[in-house]
């Protein structure tokens, strides 16, 4: 009995001492860290930075994908490089002019963290502020410097993509507290020029803080560098000088061209001084530069994103390109059919443009071409290895037993073209796991820097230098130096610009760059509004064209494969001595068995109707979407687009 009383008394005491709320305050969120922890420990700060990079680049799995954070194929699908997909911007049955139809990239507010441009910018700003705040005192000066440098670089990249999509946008450089009433954070759109200036400023800051090449590449290769910042400045200023943003583009004394040229030359000097340059000395090296490994410095790679080489889907960032380009016969995703435009585009072996006059016949597109042609495309009989079978080839043709009979494709390679894209594919890729081929995406190659310089020289009227820089690109892949590496003698500034743009299409084909060149130069249409660039450069507008393809089809109706294994035993290796003889064999097989046959159905079509590309002038830069304008009504709409109420926009992005 007595015991019970003690128990009771003790229990009452326990219950009453338990009433302190201290036990609540002692509780903690386990897998979470506070800011005082994250920014006062180098490893934790690295985790934060690793997450920031992830926000930016996690979706970047394929070189055709563009736009930071978003990384989709839409823009590449609007060029002549890829057929069959009709994004709204080139769909002639659609007219986008209302804010409701504008690009949603700008983002929107959310109560859970959403990966969108201003969120990424906020986290860059946060890192910059924290590296200056007392909380970061335990971090080394060197570490803080590099952290800040990366934040500046990432912030610049994000603003650049915002400006490329919308023109001038609000510039926010500090961490702001959300409020619906604080007028000071209702930041209006800055002009495009102001944005470009800010981007350049950030790039300069990054260049001053980051190393040109990180030491210990096994830990750091792939991080942003000063070299990337310096080279990015060239790309940014080139964009700012281009007709889309520069009303004065046609003036070869334009300050913008001069600034872009200066930035390019400056980058060339500094980068080459730090060991950057063109990778390799021939076309074979050129084709192999994307898989040099994840921890080895690659002199061509100014900005590089590495993809997973692990054998597990949940371990990393898989490569979707390798699988996409491999045809069915390789157990791949089916292959990326080359458009006829692209097949016809490449120069001849001597660097000259292909014409009827100099003997180019599209039926025999594979004959006598620029060395890069054979590394950009794969066609029947061409050597294209995979792991365990370095000499593997496949063929692209079909046959029919009768007029109405069912079509059979060799190897089920149901492609819309007798050639498919093979650039940046790894001959060591394993067909059971193409996703894990150890390939990198070199987002910014040294070759592009040289072409940027060439373009600026051309636009400023220095034709000789422009041609000289094109020559550097061509020399590396083994085009003979005669006749200015086949470029010929150019006489006008416009010819020189066109030559550079052409070289970019070849050298940078299928690297996600073409849309931005078309956009900068407004090459879809030839109107006053587009500065008549198409006419001045002597081009044809993309509008009104469609992506074309064709088949190699058996001449005669046949129930079985017209070719014998012996016919298909041809191994075409552009690195082989008897390369030309092999091509001749292919030609003879073609002549014997095949005929060029138009596609069964047009490649570009909308709901059963063939369409031509129709890109409206207001699409070069998207308006702000209605979800943005309706909530942030201090933001002006772009000229050419309607605002939330349907009234015409007023924001001039060329300012």
């Amino acid at each position: 009995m007595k015991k019970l009383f003690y128990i009771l008394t003790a229990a009452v005491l326990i219950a009453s001492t338990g009433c302190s709320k201290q036990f609540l305050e002692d509780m903690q969120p386990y897998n979470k860290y506070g800011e005082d922890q994250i920014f006062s420990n180098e490893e934790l700060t690295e985790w934060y930075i690793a997450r920031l990079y992830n926000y930016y680049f996690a979706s970047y799995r394929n070189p055709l994908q563009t736009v930071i954070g978003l990384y989709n194929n839409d823009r590449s699908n609007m060029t002549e490089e890829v057929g069959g997909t009709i994004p709204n911007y080139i769909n002639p049955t659609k007219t986008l002019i209302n804010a409701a139809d504008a690009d949603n990239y700008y983002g929107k507010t959310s109560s859970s963290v959403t990966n969108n441009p201003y969120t990424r910018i906020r986290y860059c700003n946060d890192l910059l502020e924290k590296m200056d705040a007392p909380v970061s005192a335990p971090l080394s000066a060197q570490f803080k410097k590099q952290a800040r440098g990366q934040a500046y670089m990432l912030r610049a990249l994000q603003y650049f993509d915002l400006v490329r999509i919308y023109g001038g946008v609000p510039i926010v450089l500090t961490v702001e507290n959300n409020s619906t009433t604080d007028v000071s954070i209702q930041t209006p759109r800055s002009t495009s020029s102001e944005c470009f200036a800010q981007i350049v400023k950030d790039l300069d800051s990054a260049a001053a803080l980051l190393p040109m090449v990180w030491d210990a590449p096994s830990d750091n290769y792939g991080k942003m560098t000063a070299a990337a910042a310096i080279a990015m400045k060239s790309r940014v200023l080139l964009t700012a000088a281009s007709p889309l943003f520069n009303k004065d583009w046609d003036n070869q004394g334009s300050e913008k061209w001069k600034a872009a040229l200066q930035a390019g030359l400056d980058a060339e000097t500094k980068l080459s001084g730090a060991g950057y340059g063109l990778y390799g000395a021939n076309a074979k090296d050129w084709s192999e530069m994307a898989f040099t490994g994840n921890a080895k410095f690659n002199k061509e790679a100014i900005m590089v994103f590495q993809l997973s080489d692990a054998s597990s889907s949940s371990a990393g960032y898989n490569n979707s390109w390798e699988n996409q380009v491999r045809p069915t016969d390789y157990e791949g995703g089916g292959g990326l059919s080359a458009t006829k435009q692209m097949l016809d585009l490449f120069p001849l072996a001597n660097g000259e443009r292909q014409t009827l006059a100099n003997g180019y016949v599209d039926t025999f597109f594979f004959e006598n071409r620029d060395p890069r042609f054979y590394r950009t495309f794969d066609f029947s009989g061409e050597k294209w290895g995979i792991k365990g079978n370095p000499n593997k080839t496949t063929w692209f043709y079909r046959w029919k037993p009768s007029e109405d009979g069912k079509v059979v494709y060799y190897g089920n390679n149901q492609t819309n073209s007798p050639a498919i894209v093979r650039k940046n594919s790894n001959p060591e890729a394993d067909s059971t796991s193409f996703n894990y081929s150890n390939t990198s995406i070199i987002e910014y190659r040294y070759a592009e820097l040289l072409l940027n310089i060439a373009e600026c020289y051309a636009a400023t009227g220095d034709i000789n230098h422009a041609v000289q820089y094109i020559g550097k690109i061509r020399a590396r892949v083994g085009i003979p130096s005669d006749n200015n590496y086949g470029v010929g003698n150019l006489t006008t500034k416009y010819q020189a610009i066109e030559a550079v743009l052409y070289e970019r299409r070849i050298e940078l084909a299928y690297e996600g760059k073409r849309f931005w060149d078309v956009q900068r130069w407004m090459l879809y249409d030839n109107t006053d509004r587009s500065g008549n660039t198409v006419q001045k450069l002597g081009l044809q507008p993309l509008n009104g064209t469609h992506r074309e393809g064709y088949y190699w089809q058996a001449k005669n109706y046949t129930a079985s494969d017209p070719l014998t294994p012996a016919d298909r035993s041809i191994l075409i290796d552009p690195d082989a001595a008897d390369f030309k003889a092999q091509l001749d064999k292919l030609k003879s097989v073609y002549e014997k068995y095949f005929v060029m046959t138009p596609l069964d159905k047009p490649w570009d079509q909308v709901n059963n109707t063939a369409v031509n590309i129709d890109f409206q002038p207001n699409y070069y830069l998207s308006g702000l979407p209605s979800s943005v304008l309706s909530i942030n009504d201090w933001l002006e709409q772009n000229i050419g687009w309607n605002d939330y109420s349907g009234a015409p926009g007023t924001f001039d992005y060329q300012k």
Partner: protein
Amino acid sequence: MRFVLFFLLSLCCMNAFAQERTVNGVVVDGKTGEHLPGAIVSAKGRPSNVSTKYDGTFSIKLLPSDSILVVSYIGYKRVQQKIGDETFVTIRMDSTVSADLNDVVVVGYGTQSKRDITGSMATVNIKQIQDMPVASISEALRGQIPGLNVSGGAQRPGELASVSIRQQFNWGKDGGNTAPLIVIDDVLQVDPQTGLPSLDRFNQLDLSEVESITVLRDASAAIYGSRASQGVIVIKTKRGQAGAPKVTYSGKFEHNDAVSHSKVMNARQYGEYSNSFNKALGRSDDYQYSEQELNMMDTLNYDWLGNDWRSAGTMQHSLDISGGSDNATYFMGASYYTQGANLGAQDFKRWTYRGGADVKLASGLHLGATIAAANTNVEKSFTKINFSDGFANGGEQNDYSVLLHMPKYIPWQYNIDGVTQYISPPLGSNRAGNVKGNNSLSNWNYYALLNNGSKTTNKNFNYNVNFSLAYDVPFIQGLSFKLNYGLSQAATNTEQVMMPQLLYQATNIASAGQHLFSETADKDWKATNNTSNSRVTYDNTTSKSEQSNFFINYNRSFGEHNISAMVSVEKATNELEDRYQIYENPTAGIYNGTSVSAGTLVTDNTITYKYESGSLSYLGRAAYNYKHKYLLDFVFRTDASTVFAPENYWGFFPGLSAGWVISDEDFFKDHIRWVDLLKIRTSWGLTGNNNIKAWKWLQTYTAETNKGFGFGTNGGLYVTGATPGATPNRDVHWDQTLQRNFGLDMEFLKSRLAVTFDQYFNSTTDMLTDMSGALNTPISVGGAFAEQNFAAVNAWGTELSITWKDQKGDFRYSIGINTGLSNYKVKKYYDLPFDYPSESTTRKAEGNYGIVPVWGFKTWKQTSGGDGMLRTDADIDNYWNYLSQNAANSGVEGATPDFMGITDKSGLKKGMLVYQDVAGNLDADNKTIAGPNGRIEENEDYVKLKKSNRSYGLSTNINLGWKSLSLYTQIATSWGGTNYLDYIKQGTSSTNAMWSQPIYLTDMYDEDTNPDGKYPNIAYYDDFGGTKSDFFMLPTFRMVIRTLSVGYTMPTKLVKKAKLNSVRFFLSGNNLWDLYNPYPKKFRNMYDPADVGYPTLRTWALGVNIGF
């Protein structure tokens, strides 16, 4: 101390010295004279009691001071009978037609006599629902109590119904929960991970363990303070009753099958549908099934679902023992539940155990102890498909819909080179598929997975112990202390195994004339071992929740003044640890259940998590009544929780309620005889809600092993990344609901008619609101925004239940109707941009109501068929002219026809729906909307299709009884609101599977083959905006007989011969028949939409209850 001890001891001993006498008697039914076994007999004022034997007789020892016997028996009115010197008494009891007002109702932290109740509380009639063949209690509550909403349940094994009370609002971004708080024996049930109310343990209870269920719908829940806004369900489990040991067995044997499966196209119908679809899209001949193939399809019927689906059995058994003496009572029970599978393999077993004892340690000192445990083991096939598209909804529970809608010309096995192999289902007419792809249908074969050792095993064990120690303070009459301690721990082990599937893929299937496997030569088959999802995962969770309370109770009557009061302090903590391991690429045939054979460890995804949370509360109740006629009740609680910043830990929640039993007033009693009871009651109280995730007041960074970007040798690999959380809002605090309730309890006509009416009006303020969509929120700030306490809403509703009960001779019956109406109005919300009425009237915005109009397109009826579908070229011309004229007449410069983004007439196709053009641009500055402008756009051209989306519902509970036969049924009726035809989009990208559609779509429009087709061509789904028009609206009336049970109690004489106490048999069914079906060709039932992930099951059960 010694004195107290002596005092107590002497109290204990006093009985022994008093003079006793023994009284014998018998308890009989007042009407039938039947002897009643098991009635409880006691002397008034003393707790000790005896129960009547099988023949209704009893024998009780009485003190000289005892003058009144109290007899109670379930289902009968309590009797108080005066006794004089007689040694044998006969006590007649009247069966209760109306609920006994003296019944004790379990309320928050205590009990109250039913007649003293002032809040809106409803008790569940356990007897009525105990026969129902349901997997969980939640499901049994459907239609039982107005204001209690039950949804889901009766589907895939392990999927339980969800419950909510009255109207709940979660306007924060996440962390929301509408589930009511469950309190089992005074222990609050919260999820140890989130700290939010949890239904887990509630759903594990077997009905045989439950003594009573009370639903608190109003301010009477304020005693649960910060968690009370969602309402509270208070459960008391069975305790022992003094008397001879009573053993009860009950068993149910159930039969489950789908109510029905949607009717889908057969092989040929699918082929024709697919041809129409692909032709409309303009796809090449490779997509067309040839006439020859269609003819062959006539002979093909591979029913992927039907091949495995079967009816299944379930068994439930429970055995209880209860008994005890004056000084100690006990209760022990065990239940067993096992469920068979309708699909795949399954071994599901659940055991629950409960034991409890109440011991009088000394006079005034009571110890109560309960230990309960539950053990659940499930081993089932693992046929997960990682595919979301059309009829496939992704995830583990997705196979049903995929199997049902798999085209029937595709076999799951095929004879290749003389060997039967599993095949890779081709996605459709021109899809060879990709066996290696991560997210496609073609890398999945249900039957391959069923037979390759893929399985998931889940073992759950938990136990709860409750101890209470009560002490009646001897010096002050009515004062007592009580200490309560509840502990619950749970451990869950889940093992998931997905083995590689060896699938054969027909490589040439993508070409015209080669779609059928009979056209595939052996050499064109390619074998692929699909390892892309093969893995073994182990997930172990352990959790612990503790709650301790210290109560001070005071109960006393002073003459006609009755007072009871209680204060308590409550402390609760929760913790949870989760360990997760994943191994990839296990080898088929080698895996033996442990990690050695499970493949390679994926280090990035092998994770350990910990969570903890806690709360501290002070609470109390004070009740006063005068003659049980004027009633007053006050409750309060003050809570502290780690969800908020320390300065916002505390919230205070009071509640006050009052009642007046008018029918007890003399003036009433004497004049209004036909009213037996009239009680009015009203309550007012403040309750809270913490619908926000924890730690939102603190800027945190969540470290995750796979969210970082690797460099150097880690290039392309996941590394650890620290993700910033939402920008914190340190000011977040409880939101508050001011609850007001007015209620009427009435009984008329000799208590045959009972009516309960409740009207509530709740104002919630400081609601945790997701403010990110507010006007003038700068998007350029970036990041995310934690909720703020901002919005306010008023919610009101009426609940009515009417019951008529009567008895005519041996025939007894009752009919009860439950119904309710509710609505809400937003009182405060952030500013939103000006918008079209379809948007501005239906969104959350200041002044908007919960019941809103239904908006959508109205089809343009001037088409040739008059149904709004384009069928001829003239239709297209006419419609385009109509838009062109509207554009021209709009007065807007540059206005051109635009149909949902189609700006060229060639974009309009036959087989599309077209709509009326009713409005044009909106002008946000002047807040006006222009007239028709030739443009058809969502929202802009929506019209009111219905004035209100309110749906009305009635549930009718009918009980019939004749002698020993009983019948119970529930009929649910509803109408109003909206109901749309299931018209499900068929995707067109290379990864979309081409599904076999519901059978009504055989009547889909096709320019050539079915120009009179009734339904638009799905190929144009996106072009005409899918189902957003009146075309797809269907009648909303529904009447369903949900449940039915018939019971038979064996005659006592017969039972006695078998040495049993009572025997009762019953047959019951759940999810029974619908009386009306508006769907074309009745292709689906009223329970399940066409893309349901698993069908509602109809269950029949045969059961028996035996008392020993």
